[in-house]
């Protein structure tokens, strides 16, 4: 492979690329070389500058310094259109689709074929042709908002193939896919590289790098830490390059005696904001000292599950008990007083108020009672002292308690929410995607806190899209698919393949053995 690649002229050469944002140096003197026919992984922690670097290549950001050459010739990529014309296209992490428009309209958007009047039938025909060739099936005439996330990703890739790009950049493409869908995506990508196209895979998942890529560039703090052939390296080595220190993949997970029943849901139904069923008869129990993990592809009712328990969503049928209190369709305050702490997925919207200070955000749950207030008036001295205490014990890096939280980094924002929720008196902790978007260090901190909570005898509902996280932390795992629990089983008995099948809605019940067998027969 190595000799083959070196003989060809590089497709892309980025040299000395730097990009500054106010207060952040996102890329610093980065060199990157891409060859035709390779899947090149761009590996790094969150905030390492991977997406910024690729946004420069896609023409969305303008580099402050550095040059870009395409097939040996210098190019100016000052707009996405310029990048397309050269042959570079990017699938962004947040999909760039116009929801009310159809697939065909989205694909043809921005193209200039010299004709005023749209010929959507011709577009649809070509989409189907490409779909068959690359195994990217999707109905060209459906509006995008009706498509699943996986289908939307296919549309994004089709948009690029339709434009005959030779370099496809995919930003964290598997984050929204089941393991099986991710495998299919891998096949599609290999088909492309077999035809001489190059693929850049932006990721922070080491498994993916090892499985899909030919070469890896590791970015750390905006600089290139190393460039290696994937076959010449190991996960541990890459992790070390990525973080800059040794990473422990195992966390201490002690035996904890489970205690009394804390959370219990019985046949809970709820509608989402579209008025469609979000939860369809969910029943589950969590005891003291137990972590119940909720697995599932995002958008299968996880959000609604957290919301019905915390009083943020109406239950149309069924009952929810926290300890001895029934919280079904009660206001959030009832849930809080019954002992519910909540780490929401939407940190800036639901978890914190961006324009309020660290201190204000920290006291948001305990301001009703002494010592922070006498019930009517706030005691600012007590609040400042309380904020300082929490900032210290949770190591929140903020200039002062008066700093607005919107100025904090993602990791520190999550620490503010953790500090508030864990310090409040509670028996149940609901943690929705608690480590999403956090770097390795902050992720480790979050997971340690969750295990400490378990040790302290709290009941924990952990919603996550990282199967590794669920498998390491949980005592039991429930798979949620289209608002139904497909099965609940001990984490020790689960494996990623079975979980993936259930996440795709393949089976109901917890007959894991028969499930695996039937899968093998297929």
């Amino acid at each position: 492979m190595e000799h083959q690649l070196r003989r060809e002229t590089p497709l892309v050469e980025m040299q000395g690329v730097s990009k500054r944002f106010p207060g952040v140096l996102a890329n610093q003197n980065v060199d990157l070389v891409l060859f035709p026919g390779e899947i090149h992984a761009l590996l790094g922690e969150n905030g390492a500058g991977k997406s910024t670097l690729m946004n420069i290549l896609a023409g969305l950001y303008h580099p402050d310094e550095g040059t870009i050459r395409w097939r040996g010739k210098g190019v100016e990529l000052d707009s996405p259109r310029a990048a397309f014309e050269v042959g570079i296209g990017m699938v962004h992490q947040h999909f760039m689709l116009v929801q009310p428009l159809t697939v065909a309209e989205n694909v043809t958007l921005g193209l200039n074929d010299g004709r005023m009047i749209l010929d959507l039938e011709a577009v649809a025909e070509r989409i189907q042709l490409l779909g068959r060739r690359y195994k990217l099936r999707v109905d060209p005439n459906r509006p995008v908002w009706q498509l699943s996330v996986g289908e939307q990703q296919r549309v994004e890739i089709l948009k690029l193939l339709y434009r005959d790009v030779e370099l496809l950049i995919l930003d964290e493409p598997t984050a929204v896919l089941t393991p099986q869908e991710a495998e299919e995506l891998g096949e599609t990508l290999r088909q492309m590289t077999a035809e001489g196209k190059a693929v850049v895979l932006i990721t922070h998942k080491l498994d993916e790098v090892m499985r899909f890529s030919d070469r890896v560039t590791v970015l750390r703090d905006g600089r290139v830490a190393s460039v290696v052939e994937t076959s010449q390296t190991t996960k541990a080595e890459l992790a070390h390059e990525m973080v800059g220190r040794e990473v422990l993949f195992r966390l201490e997970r002690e035996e904890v005696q489970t205690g009394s029943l804390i959370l219990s849901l019985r046949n809970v139904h709820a509608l989402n904001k579209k008025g469609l069923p979000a939860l369809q008869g969910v029943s589950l129990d969590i005891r003291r000292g137990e972590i119940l993990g909720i697995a599932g592809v995002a958008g299968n009712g996880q959000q609604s599950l957290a919301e019905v328990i915390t009083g943020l969503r109406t239950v149309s049928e069924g009952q929810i008990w926290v300890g001895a209190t029934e919280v079904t369709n009660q206001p959030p305050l009832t849930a809080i007083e019954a002992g519910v702490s909540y780490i929401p997925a939407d940190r800036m919207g639901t978890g914190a108020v961006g324009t309020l200070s660290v201190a204000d955000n920290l006291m948001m749950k305990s301001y009703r009672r002494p010592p922070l207030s006498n019930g009517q008036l706030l005691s600012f001295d007590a609040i400042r002292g309380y904020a300082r205490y929490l900032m210290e014990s949770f190591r929140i890096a903020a200039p002062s308690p008066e700093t607005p939280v919107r100025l904090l980094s993602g990791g520190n924002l999550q620490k503010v929410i953790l500090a508030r929720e864990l310090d409040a008196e509670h028996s149940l902790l609901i943690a929705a995607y608690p480590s999403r978007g956090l770097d390795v260090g902050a992720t480790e901190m979050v997971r340690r806190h969750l295990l400490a909570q378990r040790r302290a005898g709290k009941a924990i509902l952990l919603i996550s899209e990282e199967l590794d996280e669920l498998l390491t932390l949980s005592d039991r795992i429930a798979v949620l698919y289209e608002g139904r629990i497909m099965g609940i089983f001990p984490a020790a008995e689960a494996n990623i393949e079975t979980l993936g099948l259930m996440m795709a809605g393949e089976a109901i019940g917890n007959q894991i053995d028969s499930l695996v067998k039937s899968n093998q027969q297929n």
Partner: protein
Amino acid sequence: MDFALLISILAATIRAGTSLLYATIGEIYTERAGVLNLGIEGMMLMGAVTGFATAYHSGNALLGVVVAFMAGAGMGLIHAFLSITLRADQVVSGLALTIFGVGLSSFLGQRLGPGGGALVGLQGPHFSRIPIPGLSELPLIGDPLFNQDLLTYAIYFFVPLATFYLYRTRPGLNLRAIGEAPRAADAMGVNVTRLRYLYTMLGGALAGLGGAHLSLAYTPGWTENITGGRGWIAVALVIFSLWNPARAVLGVLLFGGINAIQFRMQAVGTTIPPQFLNLLPYLLTIIVMIAVTGYEKLSRSVGAPAALGQPYHREERGL
């Protein structure tokens, strides 16, 4: 109700509706591009005053229309600069332009007359009604539809064209995309800023044209506040028509029709207070808004452009 009354109501509805329809379609295009323009009332007034003054001095009503169109576009340009380039609050900018337009048009109305005098009360060239031979003789619809002025005839062609452009052409697709998902459109190579400027100016220009219809055809001459709130009705009509130029016709007929009926019913002497009839269209607009925002499924397909009122900047990093 006899036949003649019905015909006269219909004719009055269409005549009153022309200026509304120009302004409404203009605002639909602007909002489709993601820019909310609440300055329509001011832009119509500027169109009306400049259009009449030009026609008066040049003796050419058509030239008046051209100048009104450009005056509206100029007001649109101010709004575009404030809300797109400077990313100012679009509501504030639009309201400011309405207040500005009311004041400036009134000032110009005092000064643009002969010898720096007032325009009020003067008579100038205007668009008179031209019956179309044959068609205007048709029973019932003949007189209302085919005995109108040039600007009204123009709109018969303009509405289908505007609808076709929006839904069936490539630039129309780009327009729909930049108001829904500017970032996505930008990533596909659509120049969001340039198009938003273009359609904000076009919206202003069409409002100016609507204003010119008032001072050059509907009620020839200049009086202060000649628009009488039509700019605001246009803003309401955009919502009522769910951002679709063809449906705007329906809204205009309804708004204009209720207005026409109300005058005639007063003449006939009825027990329904005219104020009640006057508020009906707004009530309907509110009901449409409730229906659209209440059901996500409906709002996805026919609702407000998702990025309406939001400035776009490429390198701004979202959280």
